[in-house]
């Protein structure tokens, strides 16, 4: 097995309201792979992702990135938000370059990098549009491009496709796989869609709800080098979907 780039050890999280969201979560995320946190709503998967991102404080445990414990956000991790988190008053170009703007990169340099990634996510020609002029799928491509510009090794994605319609989502998933493998990113991905998890992932961590714990780790036996349509008819893919559903149905 490849080495782990992110590890979480004994993570516990209780909200101020007294709700225990996570208890003793132990997981490792292999370098260069796409790992999914999957579970029913309320299982704390987004909470766990935000703790890994350093956006939420934890009550117990440790987050290790490249072997070192971390306590806040860092340049080796970039986050893609469920609601896109784009600046409505800024163009696509400025939004994509915003991570670099915060780091104080000069305007010319950061816009050059941003243009490159805008083209890679398929938004060439939209540089000077505003988020309100884009569809949900396109907005999330902006969010993804922004995460790629800062050149983080680890991309954290919080249900990035949940507000994107079904057709757009499939195309986006395929593009995402291509892009991330090409750049050799490590991805930690939160979703509640079993199909999405089985289709995208190298590793799926199933979380059980209230309090969230890791109930099982599944490594789908899917050959990602094959075409998307082949994968969706593949035996291994379909078996993985069935296996996960068999375990998840007890929680719903």
């Amino acid at each position, binding site marked *: 097995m490849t080495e782990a780039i992110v590890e979480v050890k004994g993570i516990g999280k209780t909200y101020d309201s007294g709700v225990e969201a996570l208890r003793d979560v132990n997981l490792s995320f292999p370098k260069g792979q796409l790992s999914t946190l999957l579970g029913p709503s309320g299982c704390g998967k987004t909470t766990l992702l935000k703790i890994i991102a350093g956006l939420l404080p934890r009550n117990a445990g440790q987050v290790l990135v490249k072997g070192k414990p971390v306590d806040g*956000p860092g340049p080796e991790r970039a986050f893609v938000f469920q609601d896109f988190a784009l*600046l409505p008053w800024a163009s696509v170009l400025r939004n994509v370059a*915003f991570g670099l703007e915060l780091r104080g990169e000069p305007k010319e340099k950061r816009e050059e990098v941003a243009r490159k990634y805008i083209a890679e996510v398929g938004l060439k020609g939209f540089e000077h549009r505003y988020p309100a002029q884009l569809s949900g799928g396109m907005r999330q491509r902006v969010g993804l491009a922004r995460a790629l510009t800062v050149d983080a090794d680890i991309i954290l994605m919080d249900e990035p496709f949940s507000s994107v319609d079904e057709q757009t989502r499939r195309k986006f998933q395929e593009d995402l796989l291509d892009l991330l493998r090409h750049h050799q990113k490590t991805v930690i991905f939160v979703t509640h869609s079993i199909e999405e998890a089985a289709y995208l992932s190298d590793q799926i961590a199933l979380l059980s709800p209230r309090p969230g714990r890791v109930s099982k780790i599944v490594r789908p036996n899917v050959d990602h080098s094959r075409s998307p349509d082949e994968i969706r008819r593949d035996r291994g893919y379909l078996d993985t979907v069935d296996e996960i559903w068999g375990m998840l149905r007890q929680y719903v």
Partner: protein
Amino acid sequence: MRRWQIASFALFFGLWELTGRWPVSPAFPPFSNTFLALIEMIRDGTLGKAYLITAQPLALGIVLCAVAGIAFGIGMGLSRAIEWLSLPVFIILQAAPMAAIIPLLTYMYGIGLTSKVLAVIMLAAPVIVMNSYKGIRNTPPSLLQMCRSFQGTRVQEVVKIVLPHAAALVFTGLRLGLAMGFIGIVIAELLITPTGIGDLISYHSSTADYPKMFATIASIVAVAAVSLHLLQRVELRLFPRD
């Protein structure tokens, strides 16, 4: 759309003309007489002179509110301590019937410009402060998290996210503040000492020159409506709605 607006005005002025000619009250002049009185007052300069006087405390009050009120509202939005100290004051000010407080200003500050400026400020400040405060407070949490996730500093967060996000609501607050300022200045000119527009209204009322009195009232309504409408257009130009 435009055609209906014109039709609506025509209907309103027509009804005004009709009810004015009805022998009910001699104190209610028909539209035509009022309109002629308005033309006369514009031509002999009385209206212009009156507006110059009225505009002074209004402009002073609004400018003071714009500078101090916006700064204060932003402070309330950014600092829990300032919020805790001053939010109740502004909530009460927003609910208080200001016309009852204006005579108090006369006792404290006399009948001069100060009292009138204060009257404008007391009406306009709460909505300007509260809108700035809400604009700051309503920053979407995910934008703040986004800034933190890219290691943005607190200063960057305020300058690049919180303030630009609040700008639209701040501007709306200014527009609503000006609307309140118009109310404030007319109340002040009627209740404190008759000057400017308030003087024209009370003078023509006392000499029973009702067409001129109505013309003055109609003119201040029109001036307020047109200036607020223009401000709203500027607002939509600067901050397009999604």
